[in-house]
């Protein structure tokens, strides 16, 4: 059985999944080789939404380039911006006011929640249940409204500036966030009732797309994908930034390595995000929301690397500066790109329906992969 997997021979079906396909969540193009319903090989073809943001950034100043990273992983746009701001601040050596840090962490966790909620709905839709998608949007809409009030936009906020955040929190922010927390907690068991405990869903997820921890490391998987295989990879824990080391939260780790483990890790992460917001919401320090910075930012010659934990995994920003107002080379290490590379390994020998479930559990955002 294993020998024949991986070779194309006569009688194999070669199917293009995408670039326009309901379950690729964007313009991902997979060429899959099938033997009946069993997958022999998956080959991703990328580039349908490649905009070469790295090249664009080489002609943008350090204030300007942050907005463009929102367009990569649009579901956790705020955390992407966070990583960029951290890299620039690392180069400038600015100390960020405590209030700005708290605001950044709060909004990052809200973004993570919103991203996971959308993933939850999309995951259920991939395996054929359509109703949870709308239930997920109900809660996500509340987060988006909170974001809209404070940041001025719903998805691509561009709320980060080097040295802090663009505006102070909106006066309604605290009460609305607390309302949201209360509402979300009361609805969270619905997620279990509708999807987690459902026998069909469990059957579809358990034992599907198993990734061992050694493979997870070798394929460079991060975020929930790696943690579901038992690899500790939460940047908030292993390289804490922005005061995450002072917050009480657990790193969600499962050992199964299958789709259901990845599902459980994300559900656990939502609970941890709620706990982090709980700890911060009443103790937002007063003070400045932005450090004083020069109008024109120039990073000293050198190399700066910052890592943040987005909803999908480790997001790295690598800036090589030659001392000018624009970066010499900018590299984004996007979590989806590495996670995707494990897709072929995970889905060999499983069915087409499994491939869809695996893609859903990887939580791919295509602009994040293509950049």
């Amino acid at each position, binding site marked *: 059985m294993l020998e024949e997997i991986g070779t194309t021979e006569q009688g194999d079906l070669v199917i293009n999944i995408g670039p326009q396909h309901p379950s690729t969540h964007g313009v991902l193009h997979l060429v899959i080789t099938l033997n009946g319903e069993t997958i022999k090989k998956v080959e991703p073809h990328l580039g349908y939404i490649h905009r070469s943001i790295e090249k664009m950034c080489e002609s*943008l100043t350090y*204030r*300007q*380039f942050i*907005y*463009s990273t929102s367009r990569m992983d649009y579901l956790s746009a705020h955390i992407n911006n966070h990583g960029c701001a951290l890299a620039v601040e690392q180069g400038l050596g600015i100390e960020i006011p405590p209030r700005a840090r708290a605001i950044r962490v709060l909004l990052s966790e809200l973004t993570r929640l919103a991203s996971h909620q959308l993933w939850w709905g999309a995951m259920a839709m991939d395996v054929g249940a359509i*109703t949870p998608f709308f239930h997920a*949007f*109900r809660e996500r*809409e509340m987060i988006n409204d909170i974001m*809209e*009030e*404070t*940041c*001025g*936009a719903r998805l*691509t906020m*561009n709320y980060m*500036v080097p040295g802090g955040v*663009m*505006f102070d929190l*909106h006066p309604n922010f605290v009460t609305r966030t607390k309302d949201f927390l209360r509402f979300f907690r009361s609805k969270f068991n*619905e997620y279990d*009732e*509708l*999807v987690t*405990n*459902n*026998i*069909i869903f469990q059957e579809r997820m358990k034992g599907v797309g198993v990734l061992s921890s050694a493979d997870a490391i070798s394929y460079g998987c991060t975020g929930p994908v790696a943690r579901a295989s038992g690899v500790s990879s939460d940047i908030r824990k292993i390289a804490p930034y922005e005061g995450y080391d002072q917050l009480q939260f657990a790193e969600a780790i499962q050992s199964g390595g299958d789709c259901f483990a990845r599902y459980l890790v994300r559900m656990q992460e939502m609970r941890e995000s709620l706990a982090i917001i709980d700890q911060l919401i009443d103790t937002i320090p007063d003070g400045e929301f932005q450090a004083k910075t020069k109008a024109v930012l120039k990073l000293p010659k050198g190399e700066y690397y910052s890592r943040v934990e987005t909803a999908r995994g480790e997001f790295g920003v690598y800036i090589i500066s030659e001392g000018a107002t624009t970066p010499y080379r900018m590299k984004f290490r996007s979590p989806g790109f590495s996670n995707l590379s494990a897709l072929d390994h995970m889905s060999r020998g499983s069915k087409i329906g499994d491939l869809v479930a695996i893609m859903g559990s990887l939580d791919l955002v295509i602009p994040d992969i293509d950049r």
Partner: protein
Amino acid sequence: MSFLIDYIRTVYKSVRSLLIGMRKTGYYFTHHKEIITQNYPENRDTLNLPERFRGEVVMTHNEANEHRCTGCTACELACPNGTIKIVTKFDITPEGKKKKALDTFVYHLELCTMCNLCIEACPTSAIKMDQAFEHSVYDRRLLTKKLNKPDSKLMEGVE
């Protein structure tokens, strides 16, 4: 025998989990007050957008048709996509000196990403973000806008 008990238990558990899910959807089927859909555009009149919402860049004018833009091009430099083009002219001041002033503030809405950097960069608060969000038009050229009104002047005292 234990095989049979396991078999029956599996069937029972599975059916139960399915029924719990059906209870939830059944609840929402009968409780219409939980509906979250908004009837747009019927609710246009009552639609309240937050004051920070970024819809498009506008230039504020007062009743005397005066704006605050000095034509310093700070916004043009701050913009990451070349959305803003400022055309300047030279006014003759009463003292007879030549002074740089705004002629046309060209704003390409089709390029704008609402990043707010121009507003942050403006030293005189001449431009601000408006809450309008219904931007669809049939002709792309209509999206290129001239923000300063015809015959508008620079407000007194703005440098």
